[in-house]
């Protein structure tokens, strides 16, 4: 109903045919309902169910019983969990930093014009689209300490052979190398999108003011693409935290548990030991870690935008 006080006396006496103003705008809900049902069934229901499972004790094949916070307490005192959390954070940190660096450099290059740019960009994007498991298999062969091509390439420049993923000390950096190889293109695309939105004029006036290439990058390009860099960091963080295929296919968390991230430990708990209650609790904590980290980064992003706006 209208919330407007009638301006003039005549309006109140005006009888409106038909009862109330109806919604004339098309009804869009029917378009959304099927998706809501599906999303409810395959996304929201699992969230709720996981939460419920996490306060139960249930190993598949045995009977279920209510366990309260037991699973969470067990998690807190599980050294393997803390170790896997540490692995996850190391792995994530490296898998954000390296692709961010290479991806930004690549975006700066691909933003310029040069011969065969389209073809090279197409090739550059390939790794990101390749099936991770297939990629992981080939990398495993390349990492082979005796027969792998990587050690051969190292020997050409006089570096001694490495054990790569077969040594607990080098396994995480080696996996990060694969992750970087695969996901640098995504960073590149996001930053490239940012660069495309950068206006040309400030650069022309900076050129006239005598700013050199580095100064232009530092004081013009970087602040302007900062929001896009932040988006890339957020997406990369989420994906690196969740990384499963590469690690599982190449090391299954090994050697020993040297590359076991939460995701791998979660998999083992739920689907090797079928400890569903404990696995669910782990999933909940893992989810909280992801959301918390994303949230922190989103806050930073807000700040970076704010700085960006102030700087103008």
């Amino acid at each position, binding site marked *: 109903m209208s919330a407007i006080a009638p301006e003039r006396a005549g309006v109140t006496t*005006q009888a409106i045919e038909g009862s109330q103003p109806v919604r004339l705008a098309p009804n869009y809900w029917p378009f959304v309902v099927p998706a809501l049902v599906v999303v409810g069934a395959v996304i929201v229901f699992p969230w709720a169910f996981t939460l419920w499972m996490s306060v139960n004790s249930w190993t598949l094949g045995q009977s279920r019983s209510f366990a309260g916070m037991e699973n969470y307490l067990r998690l807190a005192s599980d050294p393997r969990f803390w170790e896997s959390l540490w692995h996850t954070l190391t792995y994530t940190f490296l898998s954000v930093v390296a692709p961010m660096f290479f991806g930004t450099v690549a975006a700066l290059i691909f933003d310029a014009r040069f011969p065969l740019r389209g073809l090279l960009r197409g090739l550059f994007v390939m790794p990101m689209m390749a099936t991770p498991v297939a990629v992981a298999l080939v990398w495993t062969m390349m990492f082979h300490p005796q027969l792998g091509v990587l050690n051969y390439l190292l020997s050409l420049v006089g570096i001694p052979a490495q054990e790569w993923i077969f040594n607990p000390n080098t396994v995480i950096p080696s996996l990060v190398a694969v992750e970087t190889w695969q996901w640098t293109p995504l960073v590149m695309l996001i930053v490239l999108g940012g660069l495309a939105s950068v206006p040309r004029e400030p650069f022309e006036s900076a050129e006239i003011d005598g700013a050199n290439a580095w100064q232009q990058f530092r004081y013009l390009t970087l602040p302007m693409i900062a929001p896009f860099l932040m988006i890339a960091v957020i997406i990369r963080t989420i994906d690196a935290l969740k990384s499963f295929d590469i690690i599982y296919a190449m090391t299954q968390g090994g050697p020993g548990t040297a590359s076991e991230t939460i995701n791998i430990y979660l998999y083992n708990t739920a689907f090797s030991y079928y400890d569903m209650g404990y696995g669910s609790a782990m999933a909940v904590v893992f989810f909280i870690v992801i959301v918390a980290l994303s949230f922190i980064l989103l806050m930073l992003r807000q700040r970076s935008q704010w700085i960006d706006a102030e700087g103008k």
Partner: protein
Amino acid sequence: MASVTINNVQKAFGNAKIIHDVSVDIADGEFVILVGPSGCGKSTLLRMIAGLETISAGKIAIGEHTVNNLRARDRNIAMVFQNYALYPHMTVADNMGFALRIKKADPADTASRVKRAASILGLEKLLDRYPRQLSGGQRQRVAMGRAIVRDPQVFLFDEPLSNLDAKLRVQMRGEIKALHQRLGTTTIYVTHDQIEAMTMADKIVVLHDGLVEQIGAPLDLYDRPANLFVAGFIGSPAMNFIHGHVEEGIFRSAGGLTLPLPEGIQPAEAAGRELVYGIRPEHIRATGQGLSGTVTLMEATGSEIFATVDCGGEVISCLFRERLALKQGEAVRIEIDRASAHLFDARTGQRI
């Protein structure tokens, strides 16, 4: 075809009241133009008639039927949008026949009606083209074609010519008018271009801040503006306004300038209040008598001369039809045509 009745209509978006209280009666077959400055609610009112916005209060009727609760698609009206809103994935013919296709009309009948509309608008050769392959003026015609194919009760136009260049605008103005004469469909046309309003309308509705300032035939609005807003809005260059009051039967401005009272005004009815004297630039002549002043600006277009004259502090703009050898800084005497002068109450803005 049908009449349109707008009765005490109001519109609010959330807390922002956009249309305060608008009533307009539009007769069957009439060409009505809504004018007003940007943001005054013209488009909103038109969209309420079209059924694209709900009506917060009041009533809109098309013909006999109140349409407040009818959806746009059930109102049997056609609308031409400012940027034409042609379906980019359909050919000109499909664009024009879309409404009939929706109605599941006989394809042969649709084709013949499209063809007829196309021939009226000179679009026969373009029927197989896509909108992106057309010029601005052609797109404009297709948009109109889409409207006339349907043979609706009412045509609605929302600034249909504002994306065209000046010359094309003049041409399309004539074509739309001719089309209306030919089809006789009730038409409501929104513009903020008062030349369009003056040349095309049977009746002009001047809107300002969601209220109707005046409704009338174009020349009525020009000759007898009901208030200061309409007086200033209609006519180009704009009417001169001089503040002052009536003293001993003549108008005396704040700066001491004296002017003859407009014809038909008794000194008694104007005495004792703050007034605004209005005179259009084209109703001032340089006859060698009257007010003396200095030319401060002078622009000759060939057919006419626009000049501003400083008469003791009051700057008055004038439009002379004859070739005068005026120079900037020169002294000049100008005479005001009493018969065409207006007097307004300064506080209420209403005509006296």
